[in-house]
């Protein structure tokens, strides 16, 4: 701010600096949509610890690396062995790495929303042009984007690797695109669930624990029940049970429509009709999360 100091001002004399008169602001005010975009980019950067302390960069960066390294290794192996197909299909990768994704959501969802609630910063946002829906949309979009970066980056590594080892461009591109659609849906779903849980648990520690609990317990319960149903020969129940945990929901959607092979016991994916139900359930869940967040923030208000 050196420009505003009159030339005669001795530098570093703080009492004199204090005497500089107040200057108004006549520049542009960019309003709601700009504020929403700013909040989005700040939250997205924050989800990887950018613009925050060094300490808060460690975990997201580490998880990002953990997500990408297996993909890189697979590519290296595939290239070295001159395989014609990647060892793991694109759609399957996120399912295998779900623990890492859950951990990321658990660590970053509370960071995104619980801080503002816990330190009561929310009223400062709502005393400005942005409204509840702007805040919720910015935070939701930011966490979903962060998750998309986390889940799509390894797919990109695999795709580039596959092209380098000349594995059929059209086939790889189609599967890669299907993989991207799948992880996009997964990002929205996980972000929604994570944010809702974090928004009702202002204490950060509880938020982290609650997100991990919901993700792992629901998956554990669902896959156990599916396994029991499978061993008891009631195969038709397997896809129905799969509706009740986020990751199996994604699994079902992609095995029905995105050319994925199901990770359900015996590879019993949902049929076309059941698959439609999976899509409805996933989209409904995302919409419900959004609605719950809006309701939550209308109450917090000022």
């Amino acid at each position, binding site marked *: 701010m050196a420009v505003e100091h009159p030339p005669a001002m001795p530098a570093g004399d703080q009492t004199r600096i204090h005497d500089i008169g*107040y200057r108004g*602001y006549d520049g542009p*005010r960019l309003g709601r949509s700009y*504020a929403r975009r*700013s909040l989005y980019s*700040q939250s997205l950067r924050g989800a990887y610890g950018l613009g*925050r302390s060094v300490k808060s960069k460690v975990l997201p960066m580490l998880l990002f690396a953990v997500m990408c390294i297996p993909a890189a290794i697979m590519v290296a192996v595939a290239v070295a062995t001159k395989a014609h197909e990647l060892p793991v299909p694109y759609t399957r990768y996120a399912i295998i790495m779900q623990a890492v994704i859950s951990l990321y959501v658990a660590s970053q969802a509370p960071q995104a929303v619980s801080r503002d609630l816990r*330190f009561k910063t929310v009223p400062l946002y709502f005393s400005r042009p942005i409204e509840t829906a702007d805040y919720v949309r910015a935070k939701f979009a930011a966490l979903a984007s962060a998750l998309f970066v986390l889940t799509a980056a390894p797919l990109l590594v695999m795709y580039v690797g596959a092209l380098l080892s000349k594995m059929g461009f059209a086939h790889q591109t189609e599967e890669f695109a299907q993989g991207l659609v799948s992880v996009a849906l997964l990002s929205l779903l996980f972000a929604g669930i994570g944010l809702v849980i974090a928004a009702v648990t202002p204490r950060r520690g509880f938020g982290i624990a609650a997100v991990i609990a919901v993700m792992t317990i629901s998956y554990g319960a669902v896959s156990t029940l599916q396994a029991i149903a499978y061993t008891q020969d009631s195969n038709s129940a397997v896809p129905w049970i799969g509706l009740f945990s986020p990751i199996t929901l994604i699994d079902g959607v992609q095995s029905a429509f995105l050319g994925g092979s199901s990770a359900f016991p015996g590879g019993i994916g949902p049929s076309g009709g059941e698959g439609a139900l999976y899509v409805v359930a996933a989209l409904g869940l995302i919409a419900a999360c959004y609605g719950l967040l809006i309701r939550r923030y209308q109450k917090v*208000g000022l």
Partner: protein
Amino acid sequence: MVRITTVDAVTVIATESLSKRFPRVTALDRLSVDIGPGVTGLVGANGAGKSTLIKILLGLSPASEGRAEVLGLDVATKGAAIRERVGYMPEHDCLPPDVSATEFVVHMARMSGLPPTAARERTADTLRHVGLYEERYRPIGGYSTGMKQRVKLAQALVHDPQLVFLDEPTNGLDPVGRDEMLGLIRRIHTDFGISVLVTSHLLGELERTCDHVVVVDGGKLLRSSSTTDFTQTTTTLAIEVTDSDAHPDGTRAVREALLARGLETHGEAGGLPGAGHILLLTATGEETYDRVRDVVADLGLGLVRMEQRRHHISEVFTGTDEQRKEAVGHGG
């Protein structure tokens, strides 16, 4: 941005039989008040409806009935436009401890719609104006209460609003910090040209700081008038005189002499040291001063002091119900 200059827009805040009813409590009851530019104090006990009023004025909570305008904009329909031109400093703590004041205020400036470069420049300016220097680069978690209050104030001012709402800005401050904050609030208007609505439950501090005071109680308007009206409707004179050989009890001699001339005096209330030597009388005009001077001179005594005692706003509250009604009637 166009500063309000037109004649019909000199009212910064106007409410018209504004009411807010919750299922079990009436927070505001047909409140009608016009507030002009300058520093206005909003006084009331806790739960008097101050925060509810600010919420409605920010366009965040619809009124049950009545209407309100801020800077000529209707709160019911122009909430976003109002919030762009108004700053708000909440009563409670609202700062994340792990970021620096600079980072935090820059972010808040952008939330108010300032472009990135302008947000950084205005942040540096504003933090300096509220009295935060090198420490603004340190995380807020390590700040004293006074410094935190300054950061809260800075985020309310960073977008150069035309009006700021300050909710209990002196809460939790020690006497020195309180005085500094009150001085700063005064400067917001005199130096920055920003109108201020400041709430407090402490009347004395608003008396010194505000041009105008609005008193609310139980959601109703108790009184609205300028601080000079409040404290100078009747002027009380305090007189202290010396004793002399001719009049060993000078105070008594003066009292009797004044009584003889039709001026009744009374002793100072409260058992403060020296209270017995101070005479209080009600000044009705210029001639009262002359008469006191003449009486003291005639008796050959020294006049130690003759000063105006200002009434305190707190008398609005401490008075009996009858006096209160009188005060409301007076305030109109």
